[in-house]
C-alpha cells in the first residue's frame, strides 16, 4: 500500500517535472523566436532607414539641381529680355535708318531725274530750241514737283504756269496759261490731271494791233463747235490791258485771232484783264473779267453772242463784284463763274498778286449777270503748307463729273520770284453754301511711268 503510494507519488513528480520541462521548453522556444523576429524587424528598420537616407540624399541633390536650373533659367530669361530689348531697339533704329535711306534714295533718284531734264533743257536753250527745252523740262515735271515740296498741296506742274484755264476734251485735259518761254499762251495736256506734258504755244501769232510777249490770263471754252480762247493783251503803243478772242478747231490749237481790235478795253476804268467765259444751262454764253488795278478793281459780266467772239447785241458790261472784305486788300480779279446744283458760284482772287497774301475767294451770284455777294468773309484758299499766294483759279469738271479747281501758286520760299508761279490742281466741293477746296490726287507729283 505504502509502496503503491510512493510509486504513485513518483509518477506524479515525474509528470510535474516533465510538464514543467515542457512549459519551460515552450517558453524558451517562444523567447528565442521572439528574439529572432525582433532582430529581423530591427534589421528591416535599419535597411529602411538606409533607403530613406539614400532617398533623402537624392532629394537633396535633385533640389539643388532644380534650384540651379531655376536660377539658370531665370538668368536666361533676363538675358533673353535684355537681348530682345536690344534687338527691338536696333530693329527700330534699322527701320528708321532704312526709311531714311529709302527716302534719301528717292530724293537722289528724283533729283537726278529732275536735274537731267533741266540740263537737257539748258542744252536746248543754248541752241535757242525753246520748244525742245520746254518739252525737256515737262518730261521731268513729276520729280521736280516732288523736290519743290508742293505735291501734298496739289502741285502738278512745277514750272511757270500762271492764270490757268483747264478744259476736258475727249478724255484729255488741256491747261492754258499766261505767256512764258513756251509762247504767247502755253498749252499742256494730261490724261490723269497729275502728269502734264507740253503741247506748245496755243497762240503762235498775234493780231497786228497786239504787243508781243504781253499776253495773259487765257480762258478756253467749246462754243458753237469751236474752241474759243479769251486772253488779255496790250495793244501796241498802250500800257492798258485789253481782252481779245481767238478760235481753233481743236483744243490744242493753234488758235487764230483775226480781230482788228480788242473785244473789251475799258480804258476809262484802267483796262480789262482776266477774261473767263461761262456757258449757262440754257446755252447762253457770258464773259466775266476784271477792270482796273489795286483800289479800283471791279469784276464785270456781259452776255456774248452765240459764236462767243463778240458781245451779244444790245448788251453792256454789268458790275457783279467789288472789293469789300479786308483780306481782299482792295483788289478782286481773275473771276471764274460756275453753276452747280442750280446756284452760281463766282471764284475770284484777292489782294496783291505778287505776295503771299494773294488768296482765292468765292461769292454767290443770283445769275450770270450777278449780283454777287461773298459766300464767306474769308478766302477759301490761302497760303499754306506747300503753296504760297494761290490765285488765278479756274474750275473744271473731270470725266466722272467731279469738280476740280486749278490755280497757280508759288512754292513757299519763292514768293515774288519772276516766272515761277506753278500749276496746282485740287478737288472742289460745291455741295455746301461755301465752296470747299479739297485735297490733290494721291499721286500728284509722282514721276510718270
Amino acid at each position, binding site marked *: 500500500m505504502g509502496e503503491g503510494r510512493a510509486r504513485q507519488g513518483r509518477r506524479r513528480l515525474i509528470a510535474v517535472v516533465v510538464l514543467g520541462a515542457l512549459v519551460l521548453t515552450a517558453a524558451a522556444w517562444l*523567447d528565442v523566436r521572439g528574439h529572432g523576429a525582433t532582430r529581423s*524587424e530591427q534589421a528591416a528598420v535599419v535597411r*529602411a532607414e538606409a533607403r530613406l537616407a539614400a532617398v533623402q540624399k537624392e532629394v537633396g541633390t535633385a533640389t539643388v539641381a532644380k534650384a540651379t536650373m531655376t536660377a539658370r533659367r531665370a538668368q536666361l530669361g533676363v538675358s533673353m529680355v535684355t537681348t530682345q530689348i536690344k*534687338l527691338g531697339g536696333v530693329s527700330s533704329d534699322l527701320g528708321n*535708318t532704312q526709311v531714311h535711306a529709302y527716302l534719301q534714295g528717292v530724293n537722289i533718284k528724283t533729283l537726278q531725274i529732275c*536735274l537731267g531734264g533741266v540740263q537737257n533743257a*539748258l542744252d536746248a536753250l543754248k541752241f535757242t530750241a525753246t520748244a525742245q527745252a520746254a518739252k525737256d523740262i515737262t518730261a521731268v515735271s513729276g520729280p521736280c514737283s516732288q523736290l519743290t515740296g508742293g505735291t501734298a498741296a496739289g502741285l502738278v506742274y512745277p514750272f511757270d504756269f500762271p492764270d490757268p484755264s483747264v478744259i476736258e476734251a475727249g478724255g484729255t485735259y488741256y491747261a492754258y496759261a499766261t505767256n512764258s518761254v513756251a509762247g504767247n499762251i502755253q498749252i499742256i495736256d494730261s490724261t490723269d490731271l497729275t502728269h502734264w506734258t507740253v503741247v506748245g504755244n496755243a497762240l503762235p501769232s498775234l493780231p497786228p494791233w497786239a504787243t508781243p510777249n504781253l499776253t495773259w490770263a487765257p480762258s478756253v471754252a467749246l462754243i458753237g463747235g469751236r474752241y474759243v480762247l479769251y486772253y488779255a493783251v496790250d495793244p501796241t503803243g498802250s500800257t492798258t490791258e485789253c481782252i481779245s478772242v481767238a478760235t481753233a478747231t481743236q483744243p490744242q490749237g493753234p488758235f487764230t485771232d483775226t480781230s482788228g481790235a480788242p473785244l473789251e478795253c475799258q480804258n476809262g476804268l484802267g483796262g480789262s484783264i482776266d477774261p473767263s467765259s461761262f456757258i449757262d444751262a440754257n446755252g447762253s454764253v457770258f464773259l466775266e473779267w476784271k477792270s482796273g488795278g489795286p483800289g479800283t478793281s471791279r469784276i464785270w459780266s456781259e452776255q456774248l453772242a452765240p459764236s462767243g467772239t463778240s458781245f451779244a447785241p444790245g448788251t453792256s458790261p454789268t458790275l457783279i463784284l467789288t472789293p469789300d472784305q479786308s483780306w481782299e486788300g482792295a483788289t478782286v480779279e481773275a473771276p471764274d463763274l460756275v453753276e452747280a446744283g442750280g446756284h452760281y458760284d463766282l471764284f475770284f482772287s484777292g489782294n496783291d498778286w505778287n505776295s503771299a497774301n494773294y488768296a482765292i475767294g468765292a461769292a454767290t451770284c443770283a445769275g450770270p449777270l450777278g449780283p454777287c455777294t461773298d459766300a464767306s468773309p474769308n478766302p477759301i484758299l490761302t497760303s499754306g503748307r506747300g503753296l504760297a499766294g494761290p490765285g488765278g483759279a479756274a474750275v473744271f469738271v473731270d470725266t466722272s463729273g467731279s469738280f476740280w479747281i486749278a490755280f497757280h501758286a508759288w512754292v513757299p520760299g519763292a514768293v515774288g520770284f*519772276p*516766272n515761277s508761279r506753278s500749276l496746282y490742281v485740287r478737288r472742289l466741293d460745291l455741295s455746301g453754301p461755301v465752296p470747299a477746296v479739297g485735297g490733290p490726287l494721291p499721286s500728284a507729283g509722282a514721276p510718270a511711268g
Partner: protein
Amino acid sequence: MAAVLAGVLFVATLSLLIADIVHQHQGFDRAQSELHTTDRRTAALSARLDQLHHDLGLLVTEVGNDTTALEQDTSQLRGAQWALGLTQASVAQQGTLISSLQTCLGGVEAALNSLAVGNQDQAGAELNAVSSSCTEALAHG
C-alpha cells in the same frame, strides 16, 4: 525541500522567460512601428523625388529651349547691328551726294530762271558757280 527549491527555480525561470518574451514583443512592435514610419517617409520622399525629377526634366528642356532662343536672338541682334551699320554708312554717303545734288540743282534752277528772262550771261555765271557740285553729283550718282 528539493521539490520546493525546484518549484521555485521553475517559477523563477518561467517568469524570466515570460518577461523576456513580453519584452521581445514590445521590441518587435517598436521596430515594426519604426519600420512603418520609415517606409511612409521613404514613400513620401520618393514621391517628392519623382516630382523633382519631373520638374528638373521640364526645366532642362526649358533651359535648352531658352538657350536656343537666346542664341537665335543674339544672332539676330548681331545681324541687325551689322545691317544698321551698313545702312547708316549708306545714309551718310547718300547725304553727301544729296548735298551736292541740291547745290547743283539750286544753281541750275537759278540759271534756268535767268534764261527765262533772257539773261544768258547771268545764267552762265550761275551754272559755272555750281559746276563742281554737278560734276561730283553726277559722277557718284
